[in-house]
């Protein structure tokens, strides 16, 4: 048996797999940061986000060190099942004075109209701001089709820029662990 040959083959395959998986899904922070979202009507939500006025705003305008974005769809059964966990995540953050000051949570309903997002919000009594994305603008920032739910941890940088610090695709499972993952405490 030609051991060196298979060793080299194994290493080569591992390298290709590692490369392919690492490049599997990425989000362009500059494109994401340019997406315009509707300023909420609710003064409580405006206060939460630290924005004012009317019209639109972009993610880097949110007054937080870290923005956790849930990309969801009202039609997605996994998003429906995860709603309780996302609410718990938001409660955990709001219950911790340090995190409350630094971290904000929002939802973007990709492929969803305002009407559909509102159904989702009411059904699961969601307390953080949620925004429709009926023209799939989030997709334009992604290297591959966006799977729902996808969670992004966005770090706000100087000059109205954001950095994608963490991407989590799929169910949260353990909320405490997930919070650590998103906030870089793991």
């Amino acid at each position, binding site marked *: 048996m030609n051991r060196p040959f298979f060793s080299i083959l*194994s290493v080569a*395959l591992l390298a290709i797999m590692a490369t392919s998986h690492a490049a599997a899904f990425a989000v362009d922070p500059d494109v994401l940061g340019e997406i315009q979202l509707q300023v909420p009507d609710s003064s409580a939500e405006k206060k939460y986000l630290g924005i004012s006025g009317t019209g639109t705003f972009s993610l880097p305008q949110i007054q937080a060190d870290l923005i956790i974005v849930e990309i969801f769809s009202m039609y997605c059964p996994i998003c429906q099942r995860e709603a309780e966990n996302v609410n718990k995540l938001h409660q955990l953050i709001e219950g911790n004075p340090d995190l409350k000051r630094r971290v904000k949570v929002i939802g973007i309903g990709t492929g969803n109209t305002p009407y559909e997002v509102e159904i989702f919000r009411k059904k699961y009594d969601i307390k953080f701001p949620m925004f429709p994305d009926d023209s799939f603008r989030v997709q334009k920032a992604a290297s591959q*089709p966006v799977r729902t739910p996808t969670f992004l941890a966005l770090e706000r940088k100087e000059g109205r820029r954001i950095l994608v610090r963490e991407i989590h695709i799929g169910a949260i499972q353990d909320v405490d662990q997930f919070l650590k993952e998103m906030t870089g405490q793991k």
Partner: protein
Amino acid sequence: MAKGPQSKGFDLLRWSDTEPRLYSADCLDRGNVMIACEKPLAFAKVLLVMFVLSYGPAFGKEVQTESGTIFDPGRLKAVDSATSLKVGSAAPDFSLGAVSGDRVSLSQYKGKKNVVLSFVPAAWTPVCSQQWPGYNIAEDIFMRNDAVVLGITVDNTPTLYAWTKQMGRLWFPVLSDFWPHGAVAERYGVLRSDGTSERALFVIDKQGIIRYVDVHDINAMPRLEDLVRELEKLPK
């Protein structure tokens, strides 16, 4: 650059040529394969298999899901039938077996409930796998409009059982139009040439009269508010 995905439970939201499309998907975890390094041929074979599997979704025929797979048929002809039923027509009666084991007839709702017939093309396919979960969380809207949804596909009952189970507990009946194959879809003029049905909505009032017909682009999700708007037009 951000880290790669964790790949636990997810739905895949995919856009194609013109219309975005929704997929349910889950678990791309490849698992842990423990192969002793002293067996390099076996190790290389396993890696080769993992490598091929890892590229499966990229080539687009199947993505793994929570309890099965979503088959991607690619982009299909938007509409492949022509219904003669129009607003104002009497809705053809039918009786089909439900996943619950009951027999459900359209006529049993006459004088009692407005009915939304929701034909979807096939189980375990994109869009279809999310359309009914959407109706599921909008139950109160249908109730408010004194309406029931009847979900219909041409799949057989065991397939529908497995498929709808992963949607959560649906509040409305799901009916199998499997045999005679697609007979109800054909009566409604929404049987496609490949034996699946269109993605079609018929709103039928309590008198059994069709009040809304939407034979939708099979590749796209009908907007919920369009349906609700039609329901709200019905006499209370």
